[in-house]
């Protein structure tokens, strides 16, 4: 029994050694994981080298609501830079530029009175810190009072963003901050019915083109109504030989009330066939000949035409005519030269 006892005793101490080894192994794993954690934090600071970076989702909100109604729209934001940012949210007006329709954000305009932030820890025009890599959400409430007249409001959720600390240079320098925003098209309407107030402003097209050159043109529409509309419809090109030889579908862009906007045609995004992307109006067949008709049809969402307009362009064989002229001139010169040579030879003999 004694022998047995002495044999068991070492097995207990072996067991303690094994436990110690396990603890040692666990500690090594913890240290390894800690190292990974620290290296990741260093990567977050150094790897994402931009000093100011922010994303906002969604990039556009189209809101139609009746007077007396309220909606809440959530905007997701993320600091994609490597530094903590001070972010100050606000909602301000934007206006379209006269001819291009480009949005011009009025950063010093009066705040829109019918929005506020639902976040308990955030307010409009009060800065908060968005840490490097952090995500957050701004929950915007739009509340239109009862008996409010039907009207459009073109607003921008604007985030004034700047690093919490600027780098110190101690010499001459310029510091930057950014206002990054997304637009909200707010339509106060009792029925949300489209009024079809789009009209063709300009269809810029040459009168004569060479039969071998592509047909390029631009189209601008004007919205004379009181609410924004989308540009549905198409532009078709017909020749003597074929009607609707080419049809460009319009990209459904928003045209704000009392503004003009150049339109684009739409093509399917080769990278994602579910998407449409803008494309210029350019028709480039092997050749065109004779009178070509370019017809614009503005339609509603169901495809019913409410405005159409057409222009004619003449495709002439200018290049063949030029080549024929050059060939004729060349032959003429050669004929004259050969006649002269003949005369010289005749005079000689």
């Amino acid at each position, binding site marked *: 029994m004694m022998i047995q006892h002495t044999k068991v005793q070492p097995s207990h101490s072996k067991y303690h050694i094994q436990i110690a080894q396990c603890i040692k192994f666990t500690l090594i794993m913890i240290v390894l994981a800690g190292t990974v954690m620290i290296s990741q934090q260093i990567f977050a600071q150094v790897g994402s080298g931009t000093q100011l970076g922010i994303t906002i989702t969604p990039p556009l909100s189209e809101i139609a609501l009746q007077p007396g109604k*309220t909606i809440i729209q959530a905007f997701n934001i993320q600091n994609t*830079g490597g530094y903590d940012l001070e972010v100050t949210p606000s909602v301000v007006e934007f206006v379209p530029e006269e001819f291009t329709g480009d949005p011009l954000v009025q950063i010093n305009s009066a705040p829109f009175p019918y929005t506020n932030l639902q976040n308990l820890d955030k307010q409009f025009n009060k800065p908060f810190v968005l840490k490097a890599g952090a995500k957050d959400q701004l*929950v915007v409430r739009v509340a239109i009072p009862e008996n409010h007249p039907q009207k459009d409001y073109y607003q921008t959720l604007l985030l004034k963003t700047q690093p919490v600390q600027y780098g110190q240079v101690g010499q001459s320098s310029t510091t930057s901050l950014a206002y990054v925003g997304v637009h909200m098209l707010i339509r106060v309407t009792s029925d949300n019915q489209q009024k079809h107030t789009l009209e063709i402003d300009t269809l810029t097209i040459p009168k004569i083109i060479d039969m071998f050159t592509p047909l390029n043109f631009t189209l601008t529409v004007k919205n004379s109504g009181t609410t924004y509309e*989308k540009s549905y419809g198409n532009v078709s090109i017909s020749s003597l030989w074929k009607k609707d030889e080419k049809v460009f579908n319009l990209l459904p862009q928003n045209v704000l009330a009392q503004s003009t906007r150049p339109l684009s045609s739409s093509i399917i995004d080769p990278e994602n066939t579910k998407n449409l992307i803008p494309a210029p109006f350019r028709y480039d067949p092997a050749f065109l000949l004779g009178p070509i008709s370019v017809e614009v049809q503005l339609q509603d969402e169901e495809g019913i035409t409410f405005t159409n307009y057409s222009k004619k362009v003449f495709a002439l064989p200018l290049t063949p005519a030029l080549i024929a002229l050059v060939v004729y001139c060349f032959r003429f010169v050669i004929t004259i030269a050969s006649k002269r040579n003949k005369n010289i030879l005749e005079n000689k003999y």
Partner: protein
Amino acid sequence: MQSNSKAINNHRKKKAIIASFALGAFFLVSTLSKHILHLNNVVWANMASDNYEIQYDNINMTSGEKTKEGAYTITDTVGQTAPGEYSKYGYVVKSGFQYVYAIGNFGFSLSNTTIDLGILSSESFSNGSTEITVSTRGGGFIVRVYETSPLKHSSGVATIPDATCDNGSCTEGVAAVWINPAIEGFGYTLSGTGIPTAFVNTTYFKQFADGASSEQPQIVMSSEDVAINQKATLTVRAAASGNQAAGNYSNSLIFIATPGY
């Protein structure tokens, strides 16, 4: 008996090793998932945040995506687009560009928010730059910039005026060649994608629009198209005259970046 206790010990040893492996692996995986995948940072997956209070029931975060004839998609609040339902619910919210399937986001970044111009000296240029990056899935974008004032001396009295370029013709709206360092001023040039065509090459400069004089911010980048990390470099240039007061000069640039509509 001896072989039996040996077997028990081996079994214990195996169990201990497996347990320690499991514990270590769990710790490692949880750390990696937190710091590589940022699982702990996903805030917008959860509407019931401590940070805001929901007072109304009409909430639109991203809502539904439905394919529509003609290959574009509407992204609206579910259940409120059928004819006649507007009057019942009283609102419709559509998020994102309706011809782009994914709602996507709008992203803007600056590589450098402090542009160091060094020590300004006469008859030489001081240059510094920042890289602008923009991403949007649809609708295009516009980036504008203006300065809060011309470069000002730290005393607030002396200024370096906005550049007029070699032939005195450049303004905030007109670009011109500026290669003569004897001509003082402060301006910028651009290179990259989506920049105004006036910047033929990097010898062409413009003044910054002066916010203090209520000049309109000028476009430095724009596109009508999808932009995936579209980049342009804005290079700032300063040149001091011989009789410029010595010292440090500074001002601020304000960028305004928005997607289209």
